[in-house]
């Protein structure tokens, strides 16, 4: 198996070589090949189709069509290459007119969302590893419910044990909302710990009014608060990894549809002329 670093270097080198080749060919053929824009357009469309095929490829994993990892590498570097092809196709000038403006905007949005996806898929795993813990995104709601159940149980037990509702009241007042669902997602994305620290400070403040038994219970609850916060952290970051595709994939299909219309319009209106 080729190491990740080696894959990256191979991909980068191929991308740079491909880009140089495309720019050089464009400069050499510009004015010599009259239908150069058609040619670059078809190549761009073909590469875009190949890139789009990465999504269905994941669903037909039974076919021996290279590994998903290889497809991902191809997707990244061929995607970058479309940027060069796009610039060459538009001859380094921004298009004018509604139709072409929308087409170019769709391409740019897909490209930007792709860059964002590349960034989060590289940055988020490191952050999750640094924070610690490992949890499947789909299991997070269940685990969150388990944590909530455990905290509620501890709060109720404390009422029976010390005949005082201090912890239960605190739970209802300060913690129930926190455990009810996913919280502080944006703060987690920006590594802001203030919401957690506020809760822990409140717990520390409450400790002054508790006896030893209650304090032990409260320590357990504080541990669960930290776990829930960690769970929210995972949820927040993993959600971003999944949500960027909510932009990238729909816009990709929209772009393909618009591109097809572009091809039809170009040929229908030019009649084959340049």
């Amino acid at each position, binding site marked *: 198996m080729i190491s990740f670093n080696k894959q990256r270097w191979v991909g980068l080198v191929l991308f740079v070589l491909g880009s140089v080749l495309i720019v050089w060919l464009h400069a050499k053929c510009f*004015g010599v090949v*009259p239908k150069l824009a058609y040619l670059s357009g078809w190549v761009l469309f073909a590469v875009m189709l190949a890139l789009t095929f990465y999504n269905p490829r994941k669903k037909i994993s039974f076919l021996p069509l290279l590994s998903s990892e290889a497809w991902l590498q191809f997707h990244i570097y061929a995607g970058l290459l479309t940027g060069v092809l796009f610039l060459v196709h538009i001859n380094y000038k921004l298009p004018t007119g509604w139709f072409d403006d929308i087409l170019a905007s769709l391409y740019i949005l897909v490209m930007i969302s792709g860059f964002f996806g590349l960034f989060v898929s590289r940055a988020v795993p490191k952050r999750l590893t640094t924070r610690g813990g490992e949890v499947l995104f789909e299991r997070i709601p269940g685990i969150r419910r388990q944590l909530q159940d455990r905290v509620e149980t501890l709060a109720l037990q404390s009422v029976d044990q010390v005949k005082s509702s201090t912890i239960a009241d605190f739970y209802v007042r300060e913690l129930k909302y926190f455990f009810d669902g996913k919280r502080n997602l944006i703060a987690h994305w920006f590594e802001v710990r203030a919401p957690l620290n506020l809760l822990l400070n409140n717990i520390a403040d409450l400790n002054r009014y508790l006896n030893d038994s209650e304090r032990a219970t409260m320590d357990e609850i504080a541990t669960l608060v930290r776990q829930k916060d960690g769970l929210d952290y995972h949820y927040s970051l993993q959600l971003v990894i999944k949500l960027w595709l909510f932009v990238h994939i729909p816009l990709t299909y929209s772009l393909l549809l618009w591109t097809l219309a572009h091809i039809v319009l170009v040929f229908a209106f030019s009649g084959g002329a340049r």
Partner: protein
Amino acid sequence: MKEQLPSPDFNRYQYERPNQNWICGHAAEGKPCRIGPDSKGHCRATYECQPALKVKPGETKGRYECTRPAEYGGPCSQGPLPGGTCCRPITKCVPVRSLRSKRKVLTICVVAFTAAVLLIGLCGPFRPGFVNPGRLSSQHSTATFAKMAGAHGGGDTCVACHGNADAGPHGLVKAAFNATPGPLQVRSLVSSQPPAMNAIDENCEHCHVAHSFHEPNVVRALSCSACHREHQGSGLMPKPATANCLFCHANAEVMQASLELGKKLPAADFDFRPAQGRVLFKAPRPENGYTELIHSFADHPEFQVFAEKLKDPDTLKFNHQLHLASPNIPQLNGHKLACADCHKPDAAGVYYLKISYEENCKVCHSLQFDLENPGLRLPHGNVEHVRAFLRSLPEQYADFGAKQKGITGGAELQQFVQTQMAQIREHYGSGEELERRVFFSDAHTGPVTQVAGTDATGAARFPGCAYCHEVTSSANGAPLVTAPVIPDRWLIRGQFDHSKHFKIACTQCHDAEHSRETADVILPGKATCAECHSPRGGVASSCSTCHTFHSARKDFAER
């Protein structure tokens, strides 16, 4: 593949399947049911297990046993009901879509929205504005254009040029596949051959009737779009690029074919440029025509007028050097005679006005044939007028005396005329001799030209018509003055805009200070132009800087 095998403690029952469209509504509580929703999102939950009937040896009825798996708590303590039903029913849930399914729905919505926008844009009344890739050039945005396009049965919108512009979506797809070359004709896309005349070009030719005309020996008519790009924004259409010209002029095969075709055509076919009231300097067509290979201005042939040392055929005798450099030339309006004193730009400043005797020569070269009466001058421009003037000399003196000298008395005027005529007779002998000298005397045989002045006007003494003109005699001895023919355009295959060169002194390009003969064509050579018009000089040196492809033809110009 080996590392993809599940570990021994892998629980396949609790394996998450995010690819499924629906998730059990209890999943958020951490207690999803085992069976999960169906493919349409309906809850299928009934009981926690489906009890199994186990019949032990010797038993006839058997007993139902709980089959709840261990990961869901194992067999329950109560066990199945007597009828074989599980005692623990599951509360029905409202299944929720998986994240992947939500993304799929969003994708379908976005694609549907895109399709809707496309359909509205392409089928609705907004289509012309929607699909327009850029503003039309000013030439194709005028009311005149709309009127002309409408007159040809099209319309004044996109359909004026694009025949399929009004077609529906189906028509557009059909038109796209019927295009030549079509979308699937990949070989034609990589061809370096410029596109030939196309259906869309026929619409251009409705108005541009002579569009395909270049030189008669063009071997292949190209599509208008091969050189002209429309929809590039308002303003004038961009000039064709040099590469457009090089398609043919840098192609040896095409140039050879043009050469061969040109040899088969009569020479008169190449004399197609309409004069339009101007005098054109027509250089003789080279044997091979203009078929030399050209790749840029650097290997452009030397201008023919320069390379072949062509001569100005004009018969007028004019010495530029004398007028510009001689100390005998008097100052004009207080300054030394300069180019601009005779050569006046036209209103646009692009070219120069015709040189005429009245405007440019008369101020110095007045036709003073009588030294005693410098105010009496011969008429210019017509031999017969001059002869009539000379034959009616007494009347001319009488008229001159009355109007110029203020002699009013009849006897006094008659005396004046007799005196002048006597002097003329004394000087010339006879009227015939006077006429001969007036027409035929030149710089050698006529009186010495004293431009520095014999009177206050500083005008030259008139030596004779032949001083400037070619004068011959007819069979009956009558003088014939050859009318001068001064070309208005010297380089008829290109254009030159003097207004763009106003910062440069005339003599920097035109070597007038060393030209002594009229025959000298004092146009600059290619090297002079290339000092600026080259990559080194930094000024444009594309073909279209000087040339235009479409030369108007005489027959079209006369329409």
